């Protein structure tokens, strides 16, 4: 393995052990994406020969790609890990969906609110997330241990300085942290690591012919019958893959021939666009990620 990946691996493992040692109720957020897969792989290493001493939590918006759900369940079975799946019952009852309710409201209710509910319900006071600093500008300013006051509020002006490897892990009841073991990884690091470690990922990352429609300048997968086909839209088969995975109507695919992890690594080295350009929810407004984070989004 490259020394750079080896160093990133060691740093991530240290962060995980730190959180497990200092917080009474840790949990690992599992979004089923490539970053979550890498994070989970690192957790298996960090606590070897034991198992990770925390459960996985998936906040299900009910609009994930079908292949993601299948992959999630297969992973939990394969590794024999405790997996908690949480759906915002209130949002599900109200039938909040990303199409008719709008992406903004859906994200707010089914992701942000749901996550807060899940953390409160189970009393988790530290949650691992796979966010990286290279993803987005406000994430570049994020701490490794991101402090949340009670109510899960993120105040960018009141984050704790992180000097050396000395984390201020002190919290009061009701307060919590989000921990980001992959803070210093780049998208390319993640894929190179997946390649060298042979980590299973959702097949949606690999190019193959899929039924898609052209929408808002990107390719949207017709994943199930719930996607309304607009007048003039004709689902066509195109060879596409996803750089990032979210709710399927909100996540655009790119045209690509990269049908293996090695091909993805090559493709990324040539890439001229960023990873999250396929995420429709990020571009609502320029400081959109920061706003969502302040409200409790990851």
């Amino acid at each position: 393995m490259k020394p750079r990946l080896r160093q990133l691996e060691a740093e991530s493992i240290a962060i995980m052990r730190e959180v497990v040692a200092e917080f009474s109720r840790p949990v690992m957020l599992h979004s089923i994406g490539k970053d979550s897969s890498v994070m989970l792989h690192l957790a298996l290493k960090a606590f070897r020969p034991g198992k990770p001493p925390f459960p996985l939590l998936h906040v299900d918006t009910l609009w994930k790609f079908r292949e993601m759900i299948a992959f999630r369940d297969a992973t939990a079975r394969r590794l024999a890990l405790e997996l908690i799946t949480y759906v915002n019952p209130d949002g599900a009852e109200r039938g909040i969906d990303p199409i008719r309710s709008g992406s903004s409201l859906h994200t707010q209710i089914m992701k942000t609110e749901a996550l807060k509910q899940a953390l409160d319900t189970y009393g988790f006071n530290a949650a691992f997330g796979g966010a990286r600093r290279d993803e987005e500008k406000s994430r570049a300013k994020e701490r490794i241990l991101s402090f949340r006051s009670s109510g899960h509020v993120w105040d960018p002006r009141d984050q704790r300085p992180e000097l050396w490897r000395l984390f201020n892990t002190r919290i009061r009841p009701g307060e919590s942290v989000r921990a980001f073991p992959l803070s210093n990884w780049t998208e390319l690091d993640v894929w190179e690591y997946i390649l060298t470690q042979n980590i299973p990922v959702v097949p949606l990352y690999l190019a193959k012919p899929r039924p898609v429609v052209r929408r808002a300048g990107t390719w949207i997968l017709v994943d199930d019958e719930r996607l309304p086909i607009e007048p003039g839209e004709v689902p066509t088969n195109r060879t596409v893959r996803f750089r990032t995975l979210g709710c399927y109507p909100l996540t655009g695919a790119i045209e690509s021939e990269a049908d293996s992890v090695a091909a993805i690594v090559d493709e990324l080295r040539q890439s001229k666009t960023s990873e999250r350009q396929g995420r429709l929810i990020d571009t609502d407004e320029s400081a959109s990620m920061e706003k969502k984070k302040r409200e409790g989004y990851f």
Partner: protein
Amino acid sequence: MGGVLPLRFLTCGSVDDGKSTLIGRLLSETGQVFDDHLKALTIDSRRYGTNGAVVDYSLLLDGLETEREQRITIDVAWRHFSTPRRAFLVADTPGHEQYTRNMATGASGCDVAVILVDAEKGVLPQTRRHTTICALMGIRKIVLAVNKIDLVVFGQDGFERIVREYHAFAGGFSDLDVTCIPLSALYGDNIATRSPRMAWFAGPTLLDYLESVEVQVDLAVRPFRFPVQWVNRPNGSFRGISGTIMSGTIAVGDEVRIALSGQTTRVKQIVGPDGGVASAAAGEAATLVLAADLEVGRGNLVTAVREPATVADQFAAHVIWFSHDPLLPERAYLMRIGTKWVSATITTVKHKLSTATREQLAARTLHVNDIGFCTLATSAPVAFDAYSGNRDTGSFILVDRVTHETLAAGMIAYALRRATNVHFEPLAIDKSARAATKAQTPRVLWFTGLSGAGKSTIARALEASLHRLGRHTMMLDGDNIRLGLNKDLGFTDVDRVENIRRVGEVAKLMTDAGLIVICAFISPFRAERQMVRRLFAPGEFVEIFVDTPLEECVRRDPKGLYGKAAAGLIPNFTGLGSPYERPEAPDLTVTTVGCPLDSIVTAILTACSCT
């Protein structure tokens, strides 16, 4: 060079010197800005930009809404970029004084600092402050980037004036390696390509420098240090201690020391990220299984046997104060050091460091952004190294007990006092064995008092008497020690503390050898006499106060020092310019006015049962 680790550097300097613009320019010129980000940047430049039609690269970095609105950098941004020659992780840190803690955060993880100055404004207080912080935090490679050189029409004179002014300041830090580069972040001169508008400049471009600067510190060759993060006990048959190797290497079979207990054992098994390994080195995550079932949990430090860490509950350190609430000496704070949390107080602020002049200023407390040299005491012994030897085992943070605010960061200079439960190298022949062959009880007879009080005179007569009695003695005299062991020390308070600390350690070695040690030192401060006392077993250290009035000492003035001090030739002279703190409870007080020498000696011999 694709295999090597990324170079970590930070940009700092005063507000508006163009730090974020510089990084934005570096990212852009090295092809790191994605098309969709460039598109967003063009839109943002029109909305928030400060340069009219020119693309405002700082907006690539200033990711927080408040930052964009106020057009300043508040928080550290970490950005990756790479060239075919090297990968980089750069911390863009804020220039405003109120965000100094964020700047220090960036500096703590970096090996190189790019300090910007505005070519029109020159060296500012913040330039000096950031240089001081970088130097204290162990950064040795500094680039002085004289930015906005376009505003002074790319002139050589202005650049060289700033360089001279900067060197005059930075030259005071002994081992800084400074490279000065004139550049324009806005227009790209001397960033990635050599500027045709500054043919007079023969040095490297910024990128040339960053691609080629050597910073590799080989932590693997330093002594083994392994702070215990977590005890891994998945089942009854496995018990390992998990952590990251901060320095050195470890192999199965190596002997290690548990710092806080002093116990030693061997490494039976090493579990790395991929399973069992024969050895592991600095920077790697590992789980060690020890041969002996010892009490070792989170907060402890596993070290090499031959090169152990210091274990103490008092030490001196540089402290950068972050909080708006000023430091309260003797207030109990939480200290995070290594993986340990411990209660700690700052007992004294020795001095405050003027970041403008590097002068040591008298201070009793520290306010926000102050840097001080302090003594600290912890509620339990902690294991550490000097920061200069190991950043990870020599640093700490202080946290408020109630609000949990991170109040300060510290870098340890040296231990002040050995904790009583330090476990030294266990030796087959110990102190009592050595003393037994001499048929005596080891003692330290410590004379304190003003200059001219009669300490040395009494000490010499006492040693002569003991010698006649067949006792094995050694005399340590202030003047003699200062001519040899302590000739590097002056008479500032800090140096006086160190002087006494060293004498105490020497006396300790000599009592271990079984000797009766006679020490004659002014030793004006109670705290240091106390510090020395704690090196010894109860009853072993005998504090003898030679209580001669100041007027009598001045009258005697055997070395002519009072005369010189009164003439202003000796600053900090004890009793005149510097205080003498009388012992509150000495083991013995002797007066010298009107008392014959031999009766004083007899009194001491009797009281100390040295006969």
